[in-house]
């Protein structure tokens, strides 16, 4: 190992192994911890008092619960699709952002999973959606979206955590070797699964990593389509469209990329990783985010065209979403997820931390409004005029959403504290290649 590569490893490994981590980290952890407490409070209240504390009612049986579920799962899908493609393409960018992308995907799945479980009303019976030999001798309704959620989320959680963990193994071994205290060494050692860094180990590792990454590709498309089908299989005029899966996959990818961009520029700035995530990496990520935003824009156009071709009730419902009571949601989504990302055409914007944070955040917000617009605005003009009502979230729902944002932030903060945020083995590999060429 050359001295250059040694330097990479020591800087990145220094972070999880040091005993102190600075004041900003603590303040951020406390802030997100407070939000996690809020999450706990809203979850306990919905468990004890029931879903009546939410603003949902017929016809809005799905409110914030499904909006945020669809949003988080979109982030998870976009981020893991991105990570898997990087692994398979052996792209240079992989060294810099792969670990973030995998982490973002995993934590987003955890946040997403909370909503479907708690919107059951009796969350402690969530396992009823799993087909096990129960004493009530009936199988779950396989045509129900609830059972689809179960399979979607559990499969997603397993595959995403596998991708994340398999990628971590060599770096866990490095941490094991560099840790100072025996107990810490042993903990990292167990999770490193006896990694020795032999050629055989590396060959197996490459095979496993790529295998999991290949698994992710079809899976993510299926998972995101599952979320879309939950709307498309209903008879609600605005939802009952075959274009739904495409819309969810594409906007989900944009959203995942934007959150990866946001987290990457923040951590790059916060942990001073400019040397490992260079300007080119950030530039490429910005271009990808811009491209995905353009694809989303194309799909918004497609939505209008399909509505024009659709029957009268579907047409009215879709245009009502754009001009009716909830038009604000739709246009906010357009501005935040399509128009603002156009900033990324400028090279200076792609390379600036502030612009990265701003655009990443704005696409995330935009897609959130898109989900809100589809789930609430789309339901407003159902077939029966007698149930044309409006929906607005209660404090318990808003608190729940803020709580999951806090949980996501807290998990990310703990992740950067205890595990190497940049793939050390990939960076070492890159630098070796550069030196030898």
């Amino acid at each position: 190992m050359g001295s250059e590569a040694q330097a990479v490893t020591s800087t990145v490994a220094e972070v999880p192994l040091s005993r102190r981590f600075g004041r900003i980290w603590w303040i951020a952890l406390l802030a997100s911890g407070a939000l996690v407490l809020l999450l706990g409070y809203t979850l306990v209240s919905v468990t004890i008092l029931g879903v009546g504390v939410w603003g949902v009612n017929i016809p809005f049986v799905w409110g914030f619960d499904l909006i945020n579920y669809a949003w988080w799962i979109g982030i998870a899908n976009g981020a893991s699709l991105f990570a898997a493609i990087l692994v398979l393409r052996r792209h240079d960018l992989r060294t810099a952002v792969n670990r973030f992308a995998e982490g973002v995907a995993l934590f987003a799945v955890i946040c997403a999973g909370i909503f479907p479980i708690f919107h059951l009303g009796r969350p402690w019976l969530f396992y009823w959606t799993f087909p096990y030999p129960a004493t009530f001798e009936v199988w779950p309704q396989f045509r129900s979206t609830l059972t689809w959620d179960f399979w979607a989320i559990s499969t997603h959680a397993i595959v995403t955590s596998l991708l994340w963990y398999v990628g971590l193994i060599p770096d866990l071994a490095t941490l094991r070797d560099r840790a100072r205290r025996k107990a810490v060494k042993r903990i990292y050692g167990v999770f490193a699964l006896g990694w020795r860094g032999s050629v055989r180990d590396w060959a197996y590792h490459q095979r496993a990593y790529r295998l999991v990454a290949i698994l992710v590709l079809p899976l993510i498309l299926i998972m995101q389509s599952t979320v879309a089908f939950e709307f498309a299989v209903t008879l609600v005029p605005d939802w009952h469209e075959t274009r739904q899966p495409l819309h969810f996959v594409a906007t989900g990818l944009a959203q995942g990329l934007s959150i990866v961009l946001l987290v990457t520029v923040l951590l790059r700035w916060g942990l001073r990783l400019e040397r490992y995530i260079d300007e080119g990496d950030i530039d490429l990520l910005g271009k990808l985010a811009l491209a995905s935003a353009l694809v989303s824009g194309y799909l918004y156009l497609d939505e209008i065209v399909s509505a024009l071709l659709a029957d009268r009730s579907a047409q009215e419902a879709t245009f009502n979403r754009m001009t009716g009571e909830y038009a604000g949601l739709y246009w906010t989504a357009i501005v935040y997820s399509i128009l603002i990302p156009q900033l990324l055409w400028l090279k200076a914007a792609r390379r600036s931390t502030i612009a990265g944070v701003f655009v990443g955040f704005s696409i995330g917000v935009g897609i959130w409004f898109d989900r809100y617009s589809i789930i609430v605005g789309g339901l407003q003009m159902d077939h029966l005029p007698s149930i044309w009502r409006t929906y607005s979230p209660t404090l318990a729902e808003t608190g729940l959403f803020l709580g999951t944002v806090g949980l996501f932030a807290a998990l990310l903060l703990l992740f950067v504290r205890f595990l190497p945020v940049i793939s050390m083995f990939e960076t070492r590999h890159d630098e070796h290649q550069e030196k030898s060429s």
Partner: protein
Amino acid sequence: MAQLFTPAATTLFRVAIVLTCLGIVAGGAMAYVWARSGSTWNVGKPAAQPIPFRHDLHSGSLGIDCRYCHSTVERAADAGMPSAQTCMSCHSQVWVGASVLEPVRSSFILGQPIEWASVHRLPDYAYFHHAVHVTEGVACETCHGRVDQMPKTVKTQTMSMGWCLDCHRNPVPHLRPREAVFEMGYEPHGKGLPEDVRAFYQEASRRLTSCNTCHR
């Protein structure tokens, strides 16, 4: 640098993986058996009652008809528990001063119902109608067992949803002719039924297993 793990650690790790997998399977098997065992469903466990009432004496030895006390069983969802007046129709003559019957007498005088503890309580989301079952040939004994031999009233069946469905999916083998519904120890079931009844239940089992038959 000293070795962090001994060579045995790999073996230990593999053993731990196998044991964890076996543990999950064993845990599942145990849960399967536990969920189906009678004790989980309180089968055979008597409840503490205000009066040591004996079904074996009243129904068994004395031969009092079930309907004398559970008077609405042929007409209503609830089989009905006897009022103190019903008890006093005999106990104003027999065992007049018995101390164990004090709750009956005070209930009779004060007009307050006796607080029996239910042994067969179903959850509130399950709708059960006694009269429908009894008038269509489901005997008392089929669900409640040999009550005429019970010194203390206990459950003899789990009353789980699966147990309900076992019959709802194919009722004929569990049915009796209408005149044998209140008999105890009647054998065999499913015999002596009119042909049209059999034919009817071939078709009706679909309706009997739809969700809103019991969950309304």
